[in-house]
């Protein structure tokens, strides 16, 4: 027998297996015996036994966490993902579900399971800075996991489960502390940002010591198979062979894979991608209604004058880039006179006092003053009254938002605002008010986290963003998991203005509204190789001589969207076309 000071007693069972006995209790009970106490309570002794017994993990495979989550009801595909990662993938996986299928929930389930099994204690969760608090909140509230946001260097030691931004963690003094630790689990959100192995982010994350590891990304493969290879190297180096082996075995061109089936097989050992089309997500239908509006004479006159102003300024100016802001005027005048007014005033302040432009601006402001009626607002009011249910109105402009809130109030409709600049508490409060009291929410922001408005199924696009991704984000706020009714989308567009063109492009050519376009982000990223789609649109509007030319160029842009979409669907090793592509 070893001396009682030795805390661990190790006995070898066979060549592979050792049995470790914790001996720390022996000294303790002996000393209590010698000094005749103190002894613990018999009831607490029984409770201790029961608590261990109830948490006993009787099975290697069965998920334990499901009956310990009272604040969450995971969906079937999330549960099967968690099981597969735990047993089939040995706790190292790329979770690559399409946006909106709950990757965070899956990661939470897996983490919770390992915590319950006591296989994981120290956890590092690396996310973009803007998502740190959201992660902490979700883990705390939905999973009862005591995660904290990393704020000070001492926290690395003091807390077991830490959520930190990659950009902070990779810098000293944090870097040295983190790389010195042995983590039981590493989770990286938005992992597609790690595609380039030369970046400091990549090298840092690749050096973290971990047992289990989850990489979360909605877009596992973007432009280059090499990027996927780099991602896999963090998880399981060598899974697809060495560098050159991978190239000879799997790559034709950087975008086109070889031996697709074999590659798919290999990938299925390391990556899970649930898609909407798999039927995981029974989303309700979308009904789209475009509402063309005829502006009043005064309003149309203003639009024309602003357009002329923009054209004139464009011809006079040399560089095109600063002219982009002029297009904004045109967009704003379609939204509301308030929006255009504010921009004009700012423009006025910026022009030098002796410039003739000042007079031109004043002329426009005079025209604004003459407008009494507001066609769009009036039509929206009719629409809202007709719908007679909760409605969310999206606009691009703060001034339009303010105007609408005032306008609706005058007509006895309770409306609340929602803005990106609001702090978390205020956002939650506004959502709560919308759910319980207000009929309408007027929002300028659709992106960002945590706006879940499944209780509302009417969306009015008062004006449209020119970036398709942002349009999809808007609709996604209500058309998501938990929406029980069909979603109605109303697009307001003023006849004879640029709005008409944009709506034509987004609706007819890109077919954005009727269904979710799988891999929209991928398509856009590839389409935007040279410059962003918004910039392209600005350019087309500015450079075209007349309406006909605008239309032709927009159609061409729509065609190239369709082409890229086709390319991506045909050469996808992960995604398959969910709808046939027909130009």
């Amino acid at each position, binding site marked *: 027998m070893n001396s009682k000071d030795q805390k661990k007693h190790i006995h070898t069972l066979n060549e*592979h297996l050792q049995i470790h006995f914790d001996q720390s209790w022996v000294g*303790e009970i002996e000393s209590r015996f010698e000094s005749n106490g103190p002894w613990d*309570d018999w009831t607490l002794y*029984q409770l201790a*036994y029961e608590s*261990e017994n109830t948490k006993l993990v009787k099975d*290697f495979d069965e998920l334990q966490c499901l009956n310990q989550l009272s604040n969450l009801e995971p969906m079937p595909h999330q549960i099967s993902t968690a099981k597969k990662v735990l047993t089939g993938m040995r706790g190292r996986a790329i979770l690559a579900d399409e946006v909106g299928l709950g990757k965070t929930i899956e990661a939470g389930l897996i983490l919770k399971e390992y915590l319950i099994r006591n296989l994981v204690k120290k956890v590092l969760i690396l996310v973009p800075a803007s998502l740190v608090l959201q992660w902490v909140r979700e883990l705390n509230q939905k999973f009862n996991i005591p995660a904290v946001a990393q704020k000070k260097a001492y926290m690395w030691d003091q807390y077991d489960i830490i959520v930190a931004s990659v950009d902070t963690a990779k810098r000293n003094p944090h870097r040295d502390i983190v790389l010195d630790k042995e983590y039981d689990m590493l989770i990286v959100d938005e992992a597609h940002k790690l595609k380039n192995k030369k970046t400091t982010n990549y090298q840092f994350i690749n*050096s973290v010591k971990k047992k289990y590891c989850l990489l979360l990304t909605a877009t596992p493969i973007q432009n280059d198979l090499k990027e996927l290879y780099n991602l896999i190297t963090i998880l399981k180096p060598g899974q697809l062979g060495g560098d050159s082996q991978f190239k000879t075995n799997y790559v034709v061109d950087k975008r086109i894979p070889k031996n697709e089936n074999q590659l798919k097989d290999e990938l299925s050992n390391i990556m899970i991608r649930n898609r909407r089309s798999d039927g995981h997500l029974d989303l309700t239908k979308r009904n789209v209604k475009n509402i063309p509006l005829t502006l009043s004479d005064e309003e149309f006159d203003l639009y024309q004058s602003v357009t002329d102003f923009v054209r004139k300024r464009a011809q006079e100016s040399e560089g095109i880039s600063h002219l982009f802001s002029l297009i904004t005027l045109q967009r704003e005048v379609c939204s509301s006179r308030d929006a255009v007014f504010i921009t004009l005033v700012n423009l006025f302040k910026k022009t030098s006092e002796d410039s003739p432009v000042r007079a031109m601006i004043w002329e426009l402001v005079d025209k604004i003053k003459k407008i009494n009626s507001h066609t769009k607002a009036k039509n929206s009011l009719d629409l809202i009254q007709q719908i007679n249910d909760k409605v969310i109105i999206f606009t691009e402009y703060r001034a339009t938002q303010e105007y609408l809130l005032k306008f609706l109030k005058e007509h006895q409709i309770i409306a609340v605002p929602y803005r990106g600049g609001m702090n978390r508490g205020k956002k939650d409060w506004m959502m709560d008010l919308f759910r319980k009291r207000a009929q309408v929410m007027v929002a300028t922001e659709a992106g960002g986290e945590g706006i879940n408005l499944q209780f509302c199924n009417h969306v009015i696009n008062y004006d449209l963003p020119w970036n398709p991704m942002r349009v999809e984000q808007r609709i996604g706020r209500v058309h998501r998991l938990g929406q029980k009714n069909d979603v109605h989308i109303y697009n307001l567009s003023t006849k004879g203005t640029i709005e008409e063109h944009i709506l034509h492009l987004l609706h007819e050519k890109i077919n954005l509204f009727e269904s979710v376009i799988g891999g929209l982000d991928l398509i856009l990223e590839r389409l935007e190789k040279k410059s962003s789609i918004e910039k392209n649109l600005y350019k087309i509007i500015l450079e075209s001589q007349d309406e006909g030319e605008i239309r032709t160029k927009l159609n061409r842009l729509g065609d190239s969207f369709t082409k890229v979409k086709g390319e991506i669907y045909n050469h996808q090793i992960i995604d398959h076309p969910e709808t046939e592509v027909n130009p």
Partner: protein
Amino acid sequence: MNKQQVDQFVMRYLESKQCHIIEKGSDHVVVQLSPEADRELTNRHYYWNFVERTGASPETMRLTFVFDMEKYEQAKAKNKEKENKMNTDTILGRYLGITPLAGPQRTIQQDMTFGSIKLEQLFQVVQQKGKYINLYEVPSETSVSESTAYMSWLGVNFKVEFTSDLKRSEIHSLGICLSTGEIQTDFHHTALQMKLTTKMPPNTHIRPTISLERAVSELQKYIIQKVKVVDQKWALDAHDRLNEEILRIQTYYKDLIAAAEEEDKQEVEGLFENRLQEIKRQYEPKIQVSVINCGFFSLLCDDH
């Protein structure tokens, strides 16, 4: 643990800590904690530090533990409605249009469901505070004659964990007689059937002949025997996985190290070593035996 089990578990704890139960419903309990329970559950270290240093009389917290939040909230809302109806008819309400707040004192609500942070904390507390005991069997009335012969037993609740990248665990409750060396299984349940007390009954003679060290060693031998006959497939499988993973990274890094520039070589080798260690840490099968709790049980000779 279902709701009833959690309910009972919490109530037994509160009772054993002499907490004052203010209200008990089917979905909740309102309790004024005893000082001891307050220290263990409320995380108010600074406050208790202050009480100790100043000698101020402590004010413990009043908490509401909720075993089913949804049902509890529903019941609460219903009560409120009823109260409002009643309150509209108070004298003040009738003449002045105000109703005084007569609701119960607001307390902090805590979710006490299986998996909740508070219950987990309670688990930790009882595991720390219910670790070592020393109990005597109470002799029956009739046998309180002259001297009673007792036999001392060491009871230990072992937790045996079969760990690789996966895990499974078992509890082995063993008791060893310190006179004869006899080992009994399922000892915890045997003890639960008995009437036990912390006070040593008069005229007790205990003559342990086996040392603690020897007893511990015997128990460990017993567990090793038990574990040996358990199916070893899990460990062999884990070993296969380990070897497979090691082979994979060896192949990968061999190329990489060979291709590396002289100055980078060390770094790449370092990475490789880290990877090797983490894989071993993850997959290497082992059995870990820890002790949940243990104690001396002095039992009457006749029974055994």
